[in-house]
């Protein structure tokens, strides 16, 4: 064997062989269903195609031009951001307070914990249907409750002015337990010595919570914000089941708009354009938020 060739030790060769062998299944699956699919989504966005015909006319940037002037899409994007902001503003503080309650009361509050956790176990579809009937103006739960307070029949989902907020409330109902358990884990991971020291120094439970525990859970909070944001941007199931984006587009989200274009009206090309735009928007937003949060974290 010529000595000039850089020799790879047999040991290293066996490492590379094993690595390749063990990584092939994972990257095969990711390659087909993720990398290729994303590429194909962008690719299809340049065609005007219904998904059935053999003829697939190339239209260049036409779909993208249509998208940039599509008021319905921008409405959907705006709605997505409303969901993002309201989810963070409502879910995180309530989740935090509930976690504080459970942390303070301890094991005795197990009934609370169990009931509060239930929504997280149901599928979004089931929750969507359940609340469709809870919100039903005639046979639901909202109208009778409104009647006790002297109100009439309330049609939350049929009114474009409030439908989005009604749906966001359901989303909060679904995910508050998640943040509750998340913050509860955070609270109980804080060292007990910190609590003891603060009590010895005369802090009350409330002061401990607001002045000591909350600042210490900063990173947990940042993670929760990012989780909530990414989740809200791709939200789909529940809204599709409850309103299909209606009435008159008031609850339309990017994902429901994409879905309806692609699978209800069979505009696969334009659907792919919306999907690709969605991908770009989510990636960009996540990157920017991550960067901002990191910088804020370094300063703080």
């Amino acid at each position, binding site marked *: 064997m010529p000595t000039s060739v850089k020799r790879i030790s047999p040991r290293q060769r*066996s*490492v590379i062989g*094993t*690595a390749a*062998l*063990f*990584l092939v*299944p*994972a*990257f095969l*699956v*990711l390659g087909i*269903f*993720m990398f290729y*699919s994303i590429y*194909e*989504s962008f690719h*299809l966005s340049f065609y005007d195609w219904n*998904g059935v015909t053999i003829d697939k006319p190339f239209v260049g940037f036409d779909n993208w031009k249509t998208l940039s002037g599509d008021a319905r899409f921008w409405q959907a994007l705006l709605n997505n951001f409303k969901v993002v902001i309201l989810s963070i503003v409502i879910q995180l503080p309530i989740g935090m*307070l509930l976690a504080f309650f459970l942390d303070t009361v301890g094991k005795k509050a197990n009934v*609370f914990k*169990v*009931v*509060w956790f*239930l929504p997280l*176990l149901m*599928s*979004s*579809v*089931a929750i969507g*249907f*359940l609340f469709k009937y809870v919100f039903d103006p005639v*046979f*639901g*739960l909202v109208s*009778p409750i409104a009647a006790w307070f002297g109100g009439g029949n309330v049609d939350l989902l049929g009114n474009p002015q409030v439908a989005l907020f009604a749906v966001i409330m359901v989303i909060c*109902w679904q995910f508050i337990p998640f943040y509750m*358990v998340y913050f509860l*884990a955070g609270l109980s991971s804080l060292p007990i010595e910190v609590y003891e020291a603060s009590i010895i120094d005369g802090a*009350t*439970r*409330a002061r401990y919570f607001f002045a000591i525990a909350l600042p210490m859970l900063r990173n947990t909070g940042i*993670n*929760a914000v*990012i989780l909530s944001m*990414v989740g809200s*941007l*791709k939200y*789909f*199931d529940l809204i599709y089941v409850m309103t299909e984006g209606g009435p008159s587009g008031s609850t339309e989200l990017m*994902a429901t708009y994409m*879905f309806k274009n*692609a*699978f209800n009206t069979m505009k*696969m090309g334009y659907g792919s354009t919306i*999907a*690709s735009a*969605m*991908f770009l928007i989510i990636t960009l937003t*996540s990157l920017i938020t991550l960067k901002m949060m990191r910088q804020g974290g370094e300063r703080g």
Partner: protein
Amino acid sequence: MKQLILMRKIRQASWIDLGLFLIITLLALAWLFVAGLPFVHMFLSAFKKQFEIYNNGVFAWPDGLYLDNFKAVLTGGFIRYLTNSIIVVLISLFLILFISAFAAYVFSRLKFRFRNPLYSIVVACMAIPIHVTLIPIYMMTQKIGLYDNIFALVGPYVAFNLPLSIFILTGFMMDIPSDIEESAEIDGCSKIMTFFRIILPLSLPGMATLGIYNSVNMWNEFSFALVLTQKASSRTLPLAIWEFQGQYTANITMIMTVLTLTALPMILAFIVGQDKLVKGMMVGAVKG
């Protein structure tokens, strides 16, 4: 004694503390009501006759133990949806756990040139929204003739649960001390053998937690199931609600029965293994 401690605690607490605790307790009770009421509504309605809601109002107790709704749903194809869901989840879960354990072993134990970039790619995949891939995967499924077959769901389910699973298992395997393997290697064990003999058995607790998280996710998955299957006999549980809704549009109590039956397996699992399930569900929280 207990009361004495409580009294002392209350005396120690300031007014602000007490006020805050009062507000939080009120919130807790309010949330108990808000979180629980829809479930109570769902369970009670399932035992009502179709017209009871119309006649007695939604808040009334059921007139009697009426079980015909359950009979109708259970004999109306529900079992088929249930078996479909179980088959898809089991097959996908098996694949996810094995494939991710293989990959996690590489990322946590083997040193080679492209390890970190490859790992970054896997981690980045966690942020990919499924809706970007929905149309291409639909096309692909049509092309290979798997459309409207429950096995069409396995591929996408494995793919979308893989990145997080690899990420979690890599972290888990990194925490396994490496001296056992080193001595095994000195004894002549190959990398592949150490994986199967040592790392895999020691990773089982991590895989169990991960399995719970993935199962709940797939059990409730809707978008792929809606797009890739069409006939009732090849649809999964989340779609059962969809199908029954088309069938019994005006029959609210029947829909509530379907909802109760779909929620039941998860709620039973929750009762049996509360802490494990909570822990499993929180695995997803690392995503940020």
